[in-house]
């Protein structure tokens, strides 16, 4: 069977499964809709949380980024897992004991302030929309590459599926669908990883093969890779090129941001008891760690395969001399999708891969992306060797190759010449990752509108039924908006992700942690702290991402992605400072804090 038949089959079966589950677990009340009735078993909740957390970015892009940046890519591995430790220890059990529906609920009640609630709602909406646009785009890209439908049709199909189970099932439908999606995505990630590991190192377990000996090289895989990098003039794979301080700050911002993301926090409201909140945090990180320890292994295997199969390979098969292998077929397939490009600078018909960009950005391009002279089928757009010609002017260095980072996971099975069903499985996995995250985020948007904005804000008399209708309508509108953002992505989607983490880190995290661990924190302090933290972080990111700030102006070389780490400190300092010079919070609030710190007395626990 062809790749396409396999893809239709696997994607079709997995979609049918998601819809079946959604129909079986419809939401009947707001409690079902927001927190799945608070009755999800911890193991299932852990799996759902893991699927919710691992987005198209984790599944498709992360291994690619690590592959191209080596050690520097560790910031994502550490940041997106270490945040769960903060979450499990500092937030999850206490928020579960508090026992409401949303993050703005806690902020609003703890700081007895509608302003605080509104600041929290706006931040939650912004973070969620930023994220969800990227997911819908991911759905579209997978559809277009593997099912050969236009990206926009792919986005619409994705919207229809998410619409169906998020609007119908609410958190209950989403949670059980996500359990299935986790199983699909982890299988889809591990199967090619295991194949790659066996081929590169002869070890069945990718995490061990990563540190194992390269087949036929007589040295470890990493030593071989560092050697290849040194030969071609790249920085060593295992040491990277970012400064230690920058790596430190980015990791910190991502960790704290992870712990402050509303769609992650809300998962811990869905389990029956406080102990279950802790246990499900454990399972969540356990399931995430399976993918996150395999991803850097895939990155290293793919990097080695990429360099070995393209470096100095002749583009045309008939120009190969002796026992040389010409450039493989996948290279040309991906070149046809605009994601690989080759400029034959020294006119030797062979690919030379070196550090630096192979060509310049055209005027008006935000980053270096290839613009080809003609469509893939146009013979006039082809050069002497059959390669696609570029409009971009070549750079002066001797690198001739452009490879889009995002293809490393999608192309890895092809690069390693794996069977067709493995390639189809990766497509189904990418869709599962994108859909599960999109659904979780849409739920946050819907509850922020129907619960925080209407019921607890402007329309307190809303009935239970009315609130449920409002929640469903809000979810429906959010799906459509997300789809439109996916079809017409604002040019800066990638840049805005820095925002999402920076904002979550510099707003929610300090407000919630101080609210639990320092009884004296008052509303004025928290509100001003959140505004100061957000203001500081936003200004820095906007200045360097949109207003043309240059790298030499960076404070201590901290990149915008890492500024959230300082935003946390600014927020905390302002909150503490203002709190100390303003009156203590009301006694009722102090008592509420007391009550979430200790378990409730349960006289039935020991007595029989």
């Amino acid at each position, binding site marked *: 069977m062809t790749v396409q038949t396999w893809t239709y089959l696997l994607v079709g079966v997995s979609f049918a499964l998601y819809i079946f589950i959604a129909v079986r677990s419809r939401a009947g009340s707001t409690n079902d809709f927001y927190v799945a009735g608070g009755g999800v078993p911890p193991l299932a909740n852990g799996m759902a949380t893991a699927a919710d957390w691992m987005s198209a970015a984790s599944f498709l892009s992360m291994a690619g980024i690590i592959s191209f940046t080596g050690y520097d890519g560790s910031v994502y591995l550490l940041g997106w897992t*270490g945040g769960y430790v903060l979450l499990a220890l500092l937030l999850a059990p206490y928020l579960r004991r508090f026992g409401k529906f949303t993050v703005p609920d806690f902020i609003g009640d703890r700081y007895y302030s509608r302003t605080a609630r509104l600041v929290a709602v706006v931040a939650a909406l912004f973070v969620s929309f930023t994220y969800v646009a990227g997911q819908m785009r991911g759905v579209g890209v997978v559809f277009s590459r593997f099912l050969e439908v236009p990206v926009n049709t792919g986005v619409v199909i994705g919207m229809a599926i998410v619409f169906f189970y998020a609007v119908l099932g609410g958190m209950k439908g989403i949670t059980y669908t996500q359990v299935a999606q986790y199983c699909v995505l982890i299988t889809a990630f591990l199967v090619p990883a295991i194949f790659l590991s066996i081929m590169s190192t002869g070890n069945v377990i990718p995490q061990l093969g990563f*540190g194992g000996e390269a087949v036929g090289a007589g040295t470890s895989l990493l030593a071989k890779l560092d050697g290849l990098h040194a030969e071609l003039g790249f920085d060593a794979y295992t040491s990277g090129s970012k400064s230690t301080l920058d790596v430190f700050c980015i990791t910190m911002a991502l960790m704290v941001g992870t712990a402050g993301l509303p769609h992650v926090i809300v998962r811990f409201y869905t389990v029956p008891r406080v102990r279950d909140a*802790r246990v499900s945090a454990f399972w969540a990180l356990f399931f995430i760690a399976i993918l996150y320890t395999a991803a850097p292994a895939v990155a290293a295997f793919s990097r080695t395969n990429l360099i070995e199969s393209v470096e100095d390979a002749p583009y045309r098969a008939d120009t190969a001399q002796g026992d040389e292998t010409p450039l493989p077929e996948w290279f040309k397939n991906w070149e046809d999708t605009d994601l690989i490009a080759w400029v034959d600078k020294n006119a030797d018909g062979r690919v030379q891969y070196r550090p630096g960009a192979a060509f310049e950005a055209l005027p008006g391009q935000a980053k270096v992306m290839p613009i080809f002279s003609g469509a893939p089928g146009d013979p006039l757009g082809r050069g002497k060797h059959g390669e696609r010609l570029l409009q971009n002017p070549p750079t002066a260095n001797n690198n001739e190759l452009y490879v889009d980072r995002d293809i490393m996971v999608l192309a890895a099975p092809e690069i390693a010449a794996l069977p067709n069903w493995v390639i189809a499985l990766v497509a189904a996995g990418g869709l599962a990752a994108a859909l599960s995250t999109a659904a979780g985020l849409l739920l946050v948007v819907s509850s922020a509108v129907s619960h925080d904005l209407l019921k607890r804000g402007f329309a307190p008399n809303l009935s239970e039924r009315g609130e449920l209708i409002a929640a469903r309508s809000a979810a429906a509108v959010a799906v459509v908006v997300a789809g439109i953002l996916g079809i017409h992505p604002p040019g800066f989607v990638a840049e805005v992700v820095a925002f999402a983490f920076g904002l979550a880190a510099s707003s929610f995290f300090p407000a919630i942690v101080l609210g639990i661990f320092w009884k004296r924190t008052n509303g004025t302090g928290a509100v001003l702290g959140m505004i100061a933290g957000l203001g500081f972080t936003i200004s820095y990111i906007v200045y360097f991402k949109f207003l043309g700030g240059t790298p030499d102006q960076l404070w201590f070389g901290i990149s915008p992605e890492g500024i959230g780490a300082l935003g946390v400190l600014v927020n905390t300092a302002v909150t503490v400072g203002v709190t100390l010079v303003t009156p203590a919070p009301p006694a009722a609030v102090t008592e509420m804090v007391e009550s979430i*710190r200790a378990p409730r007395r349960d006289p039935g626990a020991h007595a029989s």
Partner: protein
Amino acid sequence: MSDHPTVDERDRAACARHWQRSLRLIAVLLSVWFAASFGCGILLRETLDQYMLPGTGFPLGFWFAQQGAIVIFVGLIGAYVLLASRIDAELDAEREAIHGEGGSR
């Protein structure tokens, strides 16, 4: 006025002790969290990279950053689940004693 604290006061004192124990547990676990990720994986990475993780081809600092710290994180939450439950059970037992002899219920 008797010198004996009331049931309510003793309950509060027990809760305060529970909170202190929880804080100590969190502090210990977070120190390990910091040492594994920011310590070994980032700040001390270059020093540690001079050594290999025994029996493998991993430079030690690189291993912490891309494998070890993640495994340690999972272990930390596992330890937290067990130890926090124990602290909660201690509080339950103390309260049982307080309220049992106070004859409330």
